[in-house]
């Protein structure tokens, strides 16, 4: 475990989380959230939790994003906050 | 049959009658016959118990054990038996009376009326035979709930608001004061049985705690209508007269004072009360209630409301007597349960009979009524005499004992209260009789037409009136019962 690398990813995580909640376009938010998830599985893989990382990549980054995008397409992209 | 089951039968017989009453919905005569029959059996059971109790037998039965040492149980003693006798005998009379009253006034929902009446009576006898505070509390609450439909029987706005007030008063006080007090005692002492010496003697509770407990019970049993928790009683007078008569002259209110008597004799114990010395507070609250309610009664024009305030005063008599803690005073107050019941129910019956026959509710309208309804008014006079305490009526005996008790306790102020209030009683009853007989009606030239109440009303009220007189001569047995209970000779 290289802690500099860890710290870097963790800071990125916070930034992506904030940005995902900040952008007005929901589709962008969903995409940024999937980046967040991918960063998260990178972190976990690095921490030695390979199985968790795999699951997160498939389920968290993959499936969640699909759900989100499907919902956004069926409802609306725009939001005021 | 085993003697132990008699109290159970006495309590449950009217409950057993309820399904029959409901089944006979379409046959009024049979339905009322069932009510009467159940009443006779009930009274029979109670009377059959009298010799056993006089012999000092222990009649006790555990119905259901809630926790170890905390059962639902019956125990028959003199005081309970006396009260049970009052309730059971008057149920019969009242049932007969309600036949006349309810049919003449064309009331609806009579099946419901008789059913709840029967349930109320079961609850009343349950209170009378309770062996411990928990049992008493349960039947007390059952009585509150079972009488609610009776109070609101007419179903109009007035009845509903009266019924609401009735229930709010009774439930608030019993759940809010009695239940916590009971649980506190149970938590501290672990015993709720009524015992001759009380259960609190060795509890080591502080003076303040005892005072709080005492007040919680005295005010918590709001059926006793001690001021300032009397407001429900005049409100509940919206009920049909048979209900007012039995429930608010006998069953409900007497359950209140009976419960307080039980607390003083069975939970605190008279000796312990005297040691603790808080009973004088109860004495003064009761004395205040006696005087104030009599004064309010004077100003009431509605006959039933006047009777209601008179009841409040008479109930306070009983509590006042019990709080004096001398043997004669306690005997007198126990006896007053019996005497006042017969006197007051006569008065209520008369009020109902007057309403049935003439439609009159207000005293100011009742001029010249004695000529139209001489029998009713004569009975009214007897009832008044008993409540005032004049010989030859039963009321005299109990009031005499109460006075003697007050003298024993060296409470001269209480003696004065008794005397003054008796005068006030006379002041609010006798003018009614006087106006009825001696003040001529609206048109003195018009020939007076006799229009008595129906026989079904008249006979019961004369029965109770005559019993009021008979009790003057036959008070020995009742006194013996109370003495057995108290373990004293007067």
């Amino acid at each position: 475990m290289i802690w500099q690398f860890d710290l870097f990813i963790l800071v990125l995580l916070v930034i992506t989380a904030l940005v995902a909640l900040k952008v007005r376009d929901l589709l962008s938010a969903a995409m940024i959230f999937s980046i967040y998830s991918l960063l998260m599985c990178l972190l976990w893989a690095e921490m030695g939790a390979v199985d968790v990382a795999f699951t997160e990549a498939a389920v968290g980054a993959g499936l969640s994003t699909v759900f989100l995008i499907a919902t956004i397409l069926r409802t609306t992209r725009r939001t005021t906050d | 049959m085993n003697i132990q089951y008699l109290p159970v039968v006495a309590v449950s017989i009217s409950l057993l009658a309820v399904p029959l009453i409901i089944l006979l919905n379409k046959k009024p005569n049979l339905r009322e016959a069932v009510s009467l029959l159940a009443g006779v059996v009930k009274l029979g059971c109670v009377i059959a118990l009298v010799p056993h109790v006089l012999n000092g037998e222990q009649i006790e039965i555990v119905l259901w054990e809630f926790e170890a040492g905390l059962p639902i149980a019956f125990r028959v003693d003199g005081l309970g038996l006396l009260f049970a006798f009052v309730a059971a005998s008057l149920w019969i009379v009242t049932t007969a009376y309600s036949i006349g009253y309810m049919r003449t006034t064309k009331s609806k929902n009579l099946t419901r009326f008789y059913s709840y009446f029967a349930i109320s009576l079961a609850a009343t006898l349950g209170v009378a035979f309770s062996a411990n505070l928990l049992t008493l509390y349960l039947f007390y609450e059952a009585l509150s709930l079972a009488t609610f439909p009776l109070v609101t029987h007419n179903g109009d706005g007035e009845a509903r608001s009266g019924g609401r007030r009735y229930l709010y008063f009774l439930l608030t006080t019993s759940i809010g004061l009695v239940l916590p007090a009971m649980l506190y005692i149970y938590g501290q002492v672990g015993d709720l049985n009524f015992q001759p010496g009380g259960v609190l003697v060795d509890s080591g509770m502080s003076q303040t705690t005892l005072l709080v407990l005492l007040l919680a019970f005295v005010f918590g049993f709001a059926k006793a209508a001690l001021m300032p928790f009397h407001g429900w009683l005049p409100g509940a007078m919206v009920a049909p007269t048979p209900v007012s008569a039995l429930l608010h002259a006998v069953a409900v209110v007497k359950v209140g004072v009976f419960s307080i008597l039980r607390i003083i004799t069975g939970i605190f114990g008279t000796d312990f009360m005297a040691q603790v010395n808080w009973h004088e507070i109860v004495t003064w609250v009761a004395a205040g209630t006696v005087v104030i309610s009599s004064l309010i009664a004077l100003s009431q024009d509605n006959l039933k409301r006047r009777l209601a305030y008179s009841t409040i005063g008479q109930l306070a008599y009983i509590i006042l007597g019990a709080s004096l803690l001398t043997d004669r005073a306690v005997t007198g107050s126990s006896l007053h349960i019996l005497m006042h019941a017969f006197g007051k129910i006569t008065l209520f019956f008369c009020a109902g009979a007057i309403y049935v026959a003439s439609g009159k509710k207000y005293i100011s309208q009742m001029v010249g009524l004695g000529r139209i309804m001489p029998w009713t008014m004569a009975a009214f006079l007897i009832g008044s005499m008993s409540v005032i305490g004049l010989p030859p009526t039963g009321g005299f005996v109990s009031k005499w004992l109460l006075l003697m008790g007050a003298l024993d306790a060296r409470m001269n102020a209480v003696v004065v209260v008794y005397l003054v209030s008796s005068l006030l009683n006379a002041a609010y009853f006798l003018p009614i009789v006087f106006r009825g007989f001696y003040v001529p009606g609206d048109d003195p030239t018009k020939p007076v037409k006799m229009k008595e109440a129906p026989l079904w009303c008249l006979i019961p009220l004369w029965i109770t009136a005559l019993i009021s007189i008979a009790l003057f001569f036959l008070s020995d047995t009742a006194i013996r019962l109370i003495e057995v209970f108290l373990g004293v000779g007067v």
Partner: protein
Amino acid sequence: MSDVLTFIISRFNYWIYIVLMMIGLYAMIAKRNYVKKFIGMSIFQTAIILFYVSTGVKSGATIPILEHGHDIGHAAAAINPDHYANPLPHVLMLTAIVVGVATLGVALAVVQKVHDQYETIEEPEILFKLGQE
């Protein structure tokens, strides 16, 4: 001062997980758009998973797969728990991830249903329309 700094640095992933959790919690409560709320919910849940995974980390340990695992007799002697990350939290987190996604799925399905009813997925507007009913 340097003590505090080392304290903070040595546990920085715990601090960041708390930060992430707070972001998620804030989004769930303060965001008005329901999709945003549920993105916040996912962030909240992954933060907790991060916390669990962090508890399994050991300095210098490797992924919890036995080296030479097939060579049973040899491996049994050679297993030193310090060399491997604790696998138990990992296994648990697999379930937690699945649960989280299932919740998200249900939530988003309900969002669609709400959108069908009220033509919006903004909380204040839904409340406004509910008030009009």
